[in-house]
């Protein structure tokens, strides 16, 4: 996938928030959360928290991390690395590119 999938306009995602892109669009097993940090950067993680049934797109995005809306485990936006219990498994991170105000997603397959 050379060019990625155009999944949103950057302006669709307020800073400090996220939106969820349906798996029917991404072709992945899980929906993918696009998460926009305070600095404006956009990152992509599998949307379902690795601990319980919660949507990371509804989490609190700040300082390079997203905090799960249910039990507050934090995941690194860039790598998906889990930073705190109760989750113990890292979230799957996907590559994104911003081009001309649009977000292009390069979903990691098999994840």
């Amino acid at each position, binding site marked *: 996938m050379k060019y990625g999938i155009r999944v949103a306009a950057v302006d669709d*995602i307020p800073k400090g928030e996220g939106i969820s892109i349906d798996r029917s669009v991404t072709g992945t097993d899980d929906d993918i959360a696009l998460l926009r940090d305070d600095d404006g950067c956009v990152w992509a993680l599998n949307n379902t928290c690795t601990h319980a049934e919660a949507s990371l797109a509804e*989490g*609190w995005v700040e300082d390079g991390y997203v905090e799960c809306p*249910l039990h*507050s485990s934090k995941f690194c936006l860039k790598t998906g690395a889990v930073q705190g*219990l*109760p989750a*113990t498994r890292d979230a799957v991170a996907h590559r994104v590119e911003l081009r001309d105000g649009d977000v292009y997603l390069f979903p990691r397959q098999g994840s």
Partner: protein
Amino acid sequence: MVASVVVVGGGIAGVSTVGALRDGGFQGDLTLIDAGEFPYDRPPLSKDYLAGSTEIKDIALQTPQWYDDNRVRMVTEKTVAALRPGVGAVELGDGTTVSADRVVLAMGGRACRPPIPGSDSTRVHVLRTADDADRLGATLVPGARLLIVGAGLIGAEVASTAGGLGCEVVLADPVWPPLSAAFSSDVAAWLHGMHEKRGVTTVNSAVKAFKDAAGGISATFAGDSEAQSFDAALLAVGMAAETALAEAAGLRVDRGIVVDARQVTSNPAVLAVGDAATRGAAGLSVNRSEHWEAARHDGQRAAAAILGIAPPADTAPWFWTDRHGVHVEVVGALSNTDQYWQRGSVGEPPFSVFAVRDGLVVGAVSVGDSTAVRAARRLIDRGIPVDPAQLIDPTTDLRKLVRGRPTEGMK
């Protein structure tokens, strides 16, 4: 330099302690002693685990690989018989000793069994461990009559779980509404009222006696003469800190193991974390915060103390609870003010209530509104003054109050 640490107790406090020690660069010997087969998470014991929809291995706090990767020597299915701080060791129940420069006590507590006559019956349960949950869960068959004594967080969660399994549940508490200090009175009343709407019978009374009866247990409520019969009963009336080892070792104990702000007990070689620890100050005993995240933070502070590094920043206390399909979160304290501001309507989730004092948020409770509580926590931690009118205005983006920015375009 500290070359070896033994952590006694594999709950969230103990596991957080070993994790924070390694994260902080501790290179020495690290041992975790636990009475169970492996450390597991306790919040599911009144919810999914009790309902039988998740298994013990699914609620392990960490994978076996994690303990290997972090070079944590696991001593499981073993109990500690005595602390020997004088010689830098703990003595196990089987007589062997494990040497340690520092011991961290993370043994939590036991569920209280108040002296109600007849409560020593095998049909009168408590809920603290997975074994307790297994025993209680075995009684929760459809149609079974369950009496829950105490409508606090655990009692309410079990009422919800048991009701969902088709049990006939009676939930008794002499206080009405329960948990009003924790939730604020309006929210507490609404949450307690959910029980009846979901088919749980609430009784505003205490139980004065139990008696084994043919195939069941009978209970008599205060003020009643007639006993009612049940298949099982649960005492959900709080916990008592596990302090026996600490007392035997001469540590200062005052309803909990007394620790300073760094989790160090009256013996500098021994620290205590989690439900068993209480932060005393100048002879005052401070109430324990018997919540999951508080225990985790205790572990992080203890690790910092052992490593001689700065502790993590303090943050307002936070907990969650789930009942009858709603997710409730509380941050800060809702009992130290008389100024409450509602965002949304109490009783129509999502909603939240903010407690405000002197222009600052001091607490918040939310039902189904995660962002409100996460914003409130940051408003409290950062001491950001607020205009309550903005808090309750549904068009206010609470994230922007935290960031100290006026509502702006999505640029």
